[in-house]
């Protein structure tokens, strides 16, 4: 089973066309193994992207050196998934 320990989901809001172009380039780059949850659309429109643990530091550095602001939407994806699974399991137990 594929797990997502330490993966984070970033929210990035491109401020201008330069940042928009940079994010569009990222969509086609396999280096960071990004999974775009919400694709790049336009200036001012949020982009959500899952970043694997192994790519976190390099990805953050990539954004920071290009002056791209970001926020962390989900700190640890696996923790959220575990919580979801626990809720499902407890509901199933309750139903039993």
């Amino acid at each position: 089973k594929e797990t997502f320990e330490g993966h984070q989901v970033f929210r990035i809001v491109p401020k201008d066309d330069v940042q928009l172009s940079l994010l569009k380039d990222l969509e086609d780059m396999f280096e960071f193994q990004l999974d775009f949850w919400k694709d790049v659309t336009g200036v001012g429109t949020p982009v959500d992207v899952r970043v694997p643990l192994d790519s976190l530091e390099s990805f953050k550095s990539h954004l920071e050196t290009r002056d791209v602001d970001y926020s962390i939407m989900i700190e640890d994806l696996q923790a959220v998934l575990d919580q979801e699974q626990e809720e499902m399991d407890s509901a199933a137990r309750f139903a039993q």
Partner: protein
Amino acid sequence: PRNTDSYDYYNYHTISEIYRFQDMLVAENPNLVSKVVIGQSYEGRPLNVLKFSTGGTNRRAIWIDTGIHSREWVTQASGTWFAKKIVTDYGRDAALTAILDNMDIFLEIVTNPDGFYYSHTRNRMWRKTRKPNRGSSCIGVDPNRNWDAGFGGPGASSSPCSETYHGPSAHSESEVKSIVDFVKSHGNIKAFISIHAYSQMLMYPYGYTRTAVKDQAELHAVAQRAVSNLASLYGTRYRYGSIINVIYQASGGTIDWTYNQGIKYSYTFELRDTGRYGFVLPASQIVPTARETWLALMTLMDHTFKNPY
């Protein structure tokens, strides 16, 4: 659960539980609900469509599908709630009763069953189908880039490893081709509503071109009413407009194809939320999401019913 009343609509369910739900709903409502198997997924799962009909032959119809992107779990869960809502409200809600006395509703709750199964068992974040790609170790096709509407154009990827891989050819995925064949053979579908998550949007064609659809003014006005009615319940804010204007250029999308087939009322939803949880929307949000979406769905269905073409 022994029946659909005791089914837990407040929780996420596996595909086998949803299949059982469908069979129970049919058994409980034999004069209203039947199950149509329109095909098989790549891994051999049935592509079940619930048909809600009060009789007649090849009546005008409304199509609703949920869960073509498997990881968008709130859509399959909402689809299950919609199915129960339809049988509960028929005969009680005047608007729905009028619709069903004259039209049929088709509801495909799990549009991408292989991906949904995989998202429960192996990878919660799985989006695509599960068909292997020749010459690549990457699996699956984005079934919302696989339709014959600007297929292979901008806004879809030619890389099998991409989440938006369009596939080797239009309608290459059985999950897509089965709907294509069904829509064409039915010939009287007047509204087609394809439901995704997340980011709170209601959109109409096109996604593959900036050319406005000829019915844009009407589709826009109806969308405005739908999102207004949706917001009346919990204040959830939706954006609305054409796909290319509201989200981005996306080629090979579902409702672009259906619109080009002559289905004027072609819409697609992106359900809750605005990004706090994304695809991992907590189960406590399922029923509120379904309830508010139902108000928008009713707006679209009622308009379709009252505006025959």
